[in-house]
């Protein structure tokens, strides 16, 4: 047989116009069809939803950050217990995450209240007598685990009360971190769904090309050689959908930017480009791995 092929040399033979050899296997990407584009659109919508979710998280984080530094916690002590006020103030000051404790005079409190209840017809003098002793706490680290229970405990020992609404506002970062966990969970669920969509699409492609895969194996192709095109295809669908989803985030960002400006929120969609691109690629590769995990060309039957 060597004689037959003698003279076969490496040449730069020109491939005719309009001929584009598409050899299967290895790093050659299979041609895109309708199924692949449909999968790309569906994955794009899912990734867009993930992008919107994380943009919302970004906006919420910025919004909370814009006012959280100004939060103070107020602790109230009944005016009749003014003997305990000094001790309570010391107790509150001893909490390490409390940077300062300011005792608000009853006149100041009454003045503030009167302003707040403009036209309420209240006499400042009368009001001052009825108001409790008030302490204003400035915090250094609202994220400290036991801070709020320490404040409650200290106030409770002297039968004082804590403004729970302010406590809830100060703990909003906890809600944000819980929302962040939910966002991760939702992203994970969507990622699995996207992987399965891509996997299903590639499964159809694999079925359509079962003969080709079988033949490549009969000719001694290695498994990576057979599977790589499909994994590449999955990655391209995922990454392409990621970029498309990122582009589709811009109308959202531009549409809400004016409204959010008043809340000191400035959304930055650029930070989502790489996560969506690589996330899409990983999701696509995962889908392809699922699809190609059980590509068997069985001959052991009769």
């Amino acid at each position: 047989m060597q004689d037959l092929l003698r003279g076969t040399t490496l040449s730069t033979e020109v491939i005719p116009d309009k001929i584009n050899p598409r050899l299967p296997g290895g790093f050659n990407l299979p041609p895109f069809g309708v199924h692949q584009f449909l999968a790309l659109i569906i994955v794009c919508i899912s990734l867009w939803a993930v992008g919107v979710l994380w943009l919302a998280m970004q906006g919420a984080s910025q919004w909370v950050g814009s006012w959280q530094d100004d939060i103070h916690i107020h602790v109230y002590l009944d005016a009749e217990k003014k003997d305990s006020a000094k001790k309570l103030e010391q107790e509150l000051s001893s909490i390490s995450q409390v940077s300062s404790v300011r005792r608000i005079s009853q006149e100041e409190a009454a003045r503030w209240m009167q302003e707040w209840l403009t036209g309420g017809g209240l006499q400042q003098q009368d009001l001052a007598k009825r108001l409790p002793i008030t302490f204003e706490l400035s915090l250094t680290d609202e994220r400290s685990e036991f801070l709020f229970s320490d404040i409650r405990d200290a106030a409770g020992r002297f039968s004082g009360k804590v403004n729970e609404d302010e406590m809830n506002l100060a703990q909003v970062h906890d809600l944000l971190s819980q929302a962040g966990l939910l966002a991760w969970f939702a992203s994970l669920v969507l990622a699995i769904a996207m992987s399965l969509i891509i996997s299903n699409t590639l499964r159809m492609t694999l079925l359509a090309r079962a003969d080709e895969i079988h033949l490549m194996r009969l000719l001694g192709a290695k498994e990576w050689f057979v599977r790589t095109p499909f994994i590449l295809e999955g990655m391209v669908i995922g990454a392409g959908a990621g970029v498309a989803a990122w582009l589709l985030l811009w109308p959202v960002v531009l549409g809400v930017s004016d409204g959010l400006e008043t809340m000191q929120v400035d959304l930055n969609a650029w930070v989502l480009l790489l996560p969506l691109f690589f996330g899409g690629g990983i999701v696509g590769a995962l889908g392809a791995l699922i699809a190609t995990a059980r590509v068997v060309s069985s001959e052991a039957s009769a």
Partner: protein
Amino acid sequence: MQRLMLRYPSGKTALSGLTLDIQQGQFVYLVGESGAGKSSLLKMLYGGVRPSSGLLMAQQIDMREASENRIRDIRRRTGIIFQDHKLLFSRTVFENVALPLRVQGWKTERLIPRVRKVLQYVGLEDRLWSYPEALSGGEQQRVAIARAMTANPAVILADEPTGNLDVDTARRVLDYLMDLNKQGTTVIMATHDLHLLKSHPGRVVQLHAGSLAGDYIEY
């Protein structure tokens, strides 16, 4: 091969107690009725199925114990021609014939002259960029032969390559296989076309119900 036995998972025994020795460079016809075990034997020779018992040495490799990598090596050194061609109809003649070399990592630029040369040998060099559906049955079988020989295999296994062809085309196909055999390639061909043995003599291995029923040279 010694006392070779093949039983499929379905329970059907395809080969039982087959002992045979095929030397490099021989042209061997496998004949016998349908279900005699011809195709099963060919499948075992390229690792499509593993022997249930007995010994099968193919190209110095024990096919019962061979790893998947070894099986792949054997397949790369073996040209296979199927009765139904197994051509890829969505791909050009070039892409079909180039596939064995592509699997071995050849670049497209190197493939074209090689494939052209092989197609020239089977008289189809002008159909390089055609699709198989545009070819006649005989031409398709010649493409299958070209694909089987393109990687310079030491062995060609042909499973009824003339089954669907008229007498003249079948003779031409056999001419190519004989020619390859003269160049030193071992050819093992399962066939029902016994009349071809008159014009293209060789060793005949006759199987019956999975056992060896005859082994002789047809002159």
